[in-house]
């Protein structure tokens, strides 16, 4: 293990980790730009790097962007990224009473703690899970892909049917171009643009970045005023508060890690769940919402813990835990890596060096995050929209092009981006489409191979439903499908009980 740590500590990897944290923090701190977008627009830079360094940089961008969202949440009452929504609840009241600097330092410490806990769980949980996953056959992979889709459909905003429809549409998009098994050309409708299929990363850039740009250009830049005067880092005070609420930090980080492991449930859900738990467990919950440091700590530790947690299904099964993981997964495919449980044996050095790199990047976030918050944040938020929009748009063009040196990919990226914006307006979230697009080949390969085996052994039913692991995953799919109904019923009962009281 120590050799992987030293591999992660090379000057190049350290530099890339620092650059990634800084770039991610800057992009994440801009209201309107998400962590997924930060990873998506910067992903092409990593294509010529060694795969480990590329992974470390992408992980650092991701972790930095999640933390960066806290600046705007605390100082502007506008979450920089959706994962910082719950940070506004107490961060902004803290800033209003003159404790904005303290809130930022607390958020930074909490983010580092959460990030480290998430990375620790990744290091501990992923290898044994990979051993279990080695027993998976084609049918298990097929059911697993369906499980990922149903779970994201159930957890994403909007209703379950729309989520599932988005997932099916993503699966259909994944089958455009050359067929995974037979090699036939499908669903191009005679167009040469689509003959190469839909490139995952450029599609992801379109689905996640173009809608953000469309909304960004539609409204004039609001006058952003920073609340509260900043006096300094207040590090000692923040460390003392953090030590006092160590259980809150630990609980929230664990919540964040496990929410991150669930496919599709990202930092925003983790932050809100951890915030609610912190409020429920507090001796005096009335302080929450009025500037309680525990609220900021709970949210920030949980959302950064999703980074490590999300990498567990991403690296073990090839199913992205969070939307930025989907982009990173796509980037790894561009690097020619076959993601899955085998990777822990065949490419162990890459995986473990990356995990240590992620830990190092998280530690680097403490000085980098504090310095950016203290000195650079005011300049970052005053970047005029007239320069921000074309810069981001230009990055999407060059990024989508450079993956396969193809103008067709840029065209597809833009069309999917426009479509994603329209669908999102009518309640179709982009995440199920993305997951369908990513899981398409896994699901199809698993399905066709199982079908072939079943037909050859004249036991089609047994091939799909006869294995214990398959049955467990099918049971989990059923639970995922009924989760929204169950949770609605529980909420209704709770509401009725409250009304009665």
């Amino acid at each position, binding site marked *: 293990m120590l050799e992987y740590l030293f591999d992660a500590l090379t000057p190049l990897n350290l530099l890339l980790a620092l650059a990634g944290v800084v770039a991610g923090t800057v992009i994440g701190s801009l209201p309107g730009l998400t962590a997924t977008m930060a990873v998506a627009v910067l992903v092409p830079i990593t294509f010529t790097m060694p795969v480990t360094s590329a992974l470390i940089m992408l992980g650092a961008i991701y972790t930095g962007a999640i933390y960066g969202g806290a600046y705007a949440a605390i100082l502007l009452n506008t979450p920089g990224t959706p994962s910082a929504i719950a940070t506004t609840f107490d961060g902004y009241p803290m800033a209003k009473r003159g404790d904005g600097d303290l809130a930022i330092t607390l958020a930074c410490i909490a983010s580092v703690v959460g990030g480290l806990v998430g990375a620790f769980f990744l290091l501990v949980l992923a290898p044994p899970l990979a051993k279990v996953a080695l027993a998976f056959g084609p049918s298990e992979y097929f059911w697993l892909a369906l499980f990922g889709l149903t779970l994201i459909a159930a957890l994403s905003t909007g209703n379950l049917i729309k989520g599932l429809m988005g997932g099916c549409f993503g699966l259909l998009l994944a089958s455009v171009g050359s067929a995974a098994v037979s090699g036939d050309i499908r669903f191009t409708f005679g167009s040469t643009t689509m003959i190469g299929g839909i490139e995952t990363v450029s599609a992801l850039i379109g689905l996640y970045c173009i809608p953000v740009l469309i909304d960004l250009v539609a409204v004039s830049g609001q006058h952003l005023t920073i609340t509260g005067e900043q006096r300094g880092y207040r590090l000692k005070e923040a460390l003392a508060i953090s030590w006092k609420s160590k259980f809150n930090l630990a609980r929230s980080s664990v919540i964040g890690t496990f929410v991150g492991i669930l496919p599709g449930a990202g930092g925003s859900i983790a932050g809100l769940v951890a915030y609610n738990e912190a409020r429920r467990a507090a001796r005096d919950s009335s302080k929450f919402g009025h500037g309680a440091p525990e609220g900021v700590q709970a949210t920030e530790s949980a959302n950064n813990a999703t980074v490590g947690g999300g990498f567990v299904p991403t690296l073990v099964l090839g199913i992205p835990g969070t939307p930025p993981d989907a982009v990173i997964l796509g980037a790894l495919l561009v690097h020619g890596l076959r993601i899955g449980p085998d990777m822990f044996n065949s490419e162990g050095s890459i995986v473990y060096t990356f995990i240590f790199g992620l830990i190092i990047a998280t530690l680097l976030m403490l000085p980098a995050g504090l310095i950016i918050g203290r000195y650079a944040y005011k300049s970052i938020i005053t970047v005029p929209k007239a320069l921000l929009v074309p810069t981001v748009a230009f990055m999407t063009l060059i990024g989508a092009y*450079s993956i396969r040196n193809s103008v067709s990919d840029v065209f597809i990226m833009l069309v999917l981006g426009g479509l994603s914006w329209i669908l999102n307006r009518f309640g179709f979230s982009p995440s199920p489409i993305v997951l369908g697009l990513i899981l398409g080949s896994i699901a199809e390969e698993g399905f066709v191979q199982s079908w072939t085996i079943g037909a050859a052994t004249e036991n089609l039913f047994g091939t799909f439903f006869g294995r214990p692991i398959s049955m467990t995953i099918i049971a989990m799919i059923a639970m995922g499908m009924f989760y929204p109904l169950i949770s609605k019923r529980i909420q209704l009962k709770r509401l009725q009980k409250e009304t009665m009281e």
Partner: protein
Amino acid sequence: MSTSVSSEKVKLTTKRDIGGIVCAALFILIGAACFYETTQMTDPDSYVFPRMVISGLMILSFILIVTSLSKPGTAETEEIPGKNRPSTPRRVLLVATLLGVTLLMPIIGFVLSGLGAFIALMLLAQYEPWNKTKMALYIIVSVAIVGGFYGAFSYLLHVPLPEGVLFQSL
């Protein structure tokens, strides 16, 4: 820089999910077109899985249409945008500009199309009036950013960005 829309009033409306119904109908049409294409395929490995997915998409779309039409409209609060009402023409122009430069990219090359897109989007995203100094400064920044990216991708990352057939033939 925020994407949020300032609202001045909130009104209560009764709404049916017309957008969802239209999208579902569109998915049914796409599904039907794709299903028809699968009938031209001869290898079962090519069409079995897509047919399953298409069937799923069409059934779910049908369920969405039926449930949306059978349910009475739901009461919803709707924000009435205030002064900062989102501009639909700017949204359309953004997408049109990006599509336009993508079509022009193989003809006039990456640098010119990229610079054109940058300046067009800069004008599109600017809401306040321009003055000469600001305009000159922003154009210098545009050239620097496009040139910087072109240099980085062409010479450091060795990405062969399109030169444009117009210039190749000169």
